[in-house]
């Protein structure tokens, strides 16, 4: 096995599977996972959509060759479901190892014996096996072209983002004094993980530009920047790195952000997309990223972001600030928002944060808006300090959660700062079990490339 793949779980699903495999009896247990598929830089990622725990004695029985095996009727039920749902079939069992795990010769022999037939039944969908240690996973996934995939890494996406590998990895020293002080906090492993991380920032205005600078100075190695807007004089109070010359020349916001990022770290890879986030070709680029920062204020950006999080199991955060005043311009609320969005933990759609009417309005031409009496809207107030609160908290959460510097509390909470009342509110998002966007029933959860994203053409 020379080719590799990735595996992604939502946290709650991984915890349920882990509890089944390691109940404390030091025995072997089994399950089948059905997974959506996403191609990421030529490396398939399997996105766990369904977990079917094998019942002891009926679904998981004494093996003819090995110790135990999935019962043929259970396998048949699962492989036909995988075929019908266009999902990959992944059989699971565990070994009692910890940070290093691999298949036994008996395991691999059984794959040779069984998987060619399963590939035929699956009609082109990948089939394979996963073996779990307590904190390690290995794969042997078979593709229809005859190639087999071992696991590069698995990612457990909850509040924090846990990485698992077939065996423990050691990081080389990073010889860059620029990071010397922060290395004292999260070490070479953390710095390496930041360097290998690919983030996307959607919107490079007041909040997104701050996010870009903070991430670049942390040492994030790869950015995708998406914004089709240019700098105006009225932006200069908020966009980090922008100056009068940028405004006079209508510099693209993504170019200003790139300049700031490269000042912080010249070796960073920056991909710039000066286009609408909601276009299909743009939205698809997000699937290959590791973390999303939504700092754009359009509803369609929210819709696409939310879909990518749940369809591709990419963690993200929606950021914003808002000022409300009455007709006398008396301030009613001054707010910063930091809303982490995680697969399996509620979404912007089922929390009513994607407005259908606003989506309709954004689809209209300027002329149509005038004709249909939408009126002319005054720009919303926007202040750098409010943006900075949202940006700093979101990037700090990213740092702590992506580097596993704090334990996963098991719940995701929106963080709302109401500055006039000096209150910080933690709001647990609701989760609609029938939500078309985040549920695993009829929803897009972990469907990967098997489903279209809600996008515009282009």
């Amino acid at each position: 096995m020379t080719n590799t793949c990735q595996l992604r779980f939502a946290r709650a699903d991984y915890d349920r599977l882990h509890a089944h495999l390691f109940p404390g009896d030091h025995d072997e247990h089994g399950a089948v996972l059905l997974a959506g598929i996403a191609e990421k830089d030529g490396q398939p990622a399997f996105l766990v959509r369904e977990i079917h725990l094998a019942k002891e004695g009926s679904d998981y029985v004494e093996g003819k060759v090995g110790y135990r095996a999935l019962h043929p009727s259970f396998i048949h039920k699962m492989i036909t479901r995988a075929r019908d749902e266009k999902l990959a079939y992944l059989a699971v069992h565990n070994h009692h190892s910890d940070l290093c795990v691999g298949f036994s010769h008996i395991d691999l022999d059984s794959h040779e014996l069984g998987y060619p037939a399963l590939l035929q039944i699956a009609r082109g969908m990948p089939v394979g096996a996963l073996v779990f240690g307590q904190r390690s996973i290995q794969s042997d996934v078979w593709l229809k072209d005859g190639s087999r995939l071992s696991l590069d890494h698995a990612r457990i996406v909850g509040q924090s983002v846990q990485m698992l590998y077939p065996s423990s990895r050691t990081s080389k020293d990073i010889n860059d004094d620029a990071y010397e002080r922060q290395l004292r906090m999260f070490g070479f492993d953390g710095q390496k993980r930041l360097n290998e991380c690919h983030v996307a920032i959607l919107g490079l205005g007041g909040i997104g530009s701050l996010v870009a600078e903070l991430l670049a100075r942390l040492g994030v190695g790869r950015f995708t920047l998406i914004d089709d807007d240019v700098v105006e004089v009225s932006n200069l109070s908020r966009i980090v790195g922008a100056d009068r010359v940028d405004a006079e020349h209508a510099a693209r916001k993504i170019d200003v952000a790139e300049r700031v990022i490269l000042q912080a770290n010249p070796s960073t890879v920056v991909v710039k997309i000066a286009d609408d986030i909601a276009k299909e070709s743009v939205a698809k680029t997000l699937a290959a990223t590791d973390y999303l920062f939504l700092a754009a204020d359009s509803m369609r950006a929210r819709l696409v972001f939310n879909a990518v999080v749940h369809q591709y199991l990419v963690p993200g955060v929606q950021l914003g600030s808002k000022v409300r005043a009455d007709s006398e311009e008396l301030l009613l609320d001054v707010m910063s928002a930091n809303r982490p969005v995680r697969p399996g933990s509620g979404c912007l759609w089922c929390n009513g944060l994607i407005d259908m009417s606003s989506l309709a309005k954004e689809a209209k031409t300027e002329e149509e808006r005038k004709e249909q009496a939408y009126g002319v809207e005054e720009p919303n107030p926007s202040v750098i300090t409010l943006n900075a609160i949202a940006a700093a908290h979101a990037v700090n959460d990213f740092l702590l959660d992506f580097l596993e510097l704090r334990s996963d509390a098991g719940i995701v909470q929106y963080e709302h700062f109401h500055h006039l009342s000096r209150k910080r509110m933690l709001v647990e998002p609701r989760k609609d079990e029938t939500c078309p966007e985040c549920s695993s029933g009829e929803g897009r959860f972990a469907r990967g490339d098997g489903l279209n994203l809600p996008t515009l053409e282009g």
Partner: protein
Amino acid sequence: MKPPVQTSIEELQRQFPDAVISVRDDGSGGAYVILNPIAIGARYVPTSTWMGFHIPPLYPYADIYPVFIGSDVRRIDGQAFVPPVTHNAAFEGRPAIQVSRRSSAAQQGLQKAATKVLKILDFLEKL
């Protein structure tokens, strides 16, 4: 045209088999649609008219809003229309009456174009 938009037009044709449906691609995946004729009931003269709307490319997430009917429609009781029904609008070059009925935020389930038309007809019937 995006597949959900295409599907919604097929559903409209099934729901309103007597109407001719004209469709213009909006260039982003949505469509401008006119159904003609649509019966709006005995409380109006004429009792049937055309009905037009934009199905946005992000349908069924984006609302179908507003909806337009023929500008010659009058209430049989002689009363004038009041907001959210307004005169002096236009749709696809046709003089029109605009019916501004949003789908409620409480109805965050995915909408259907045919359902939206039925809701507008229900609204007009009860107006």
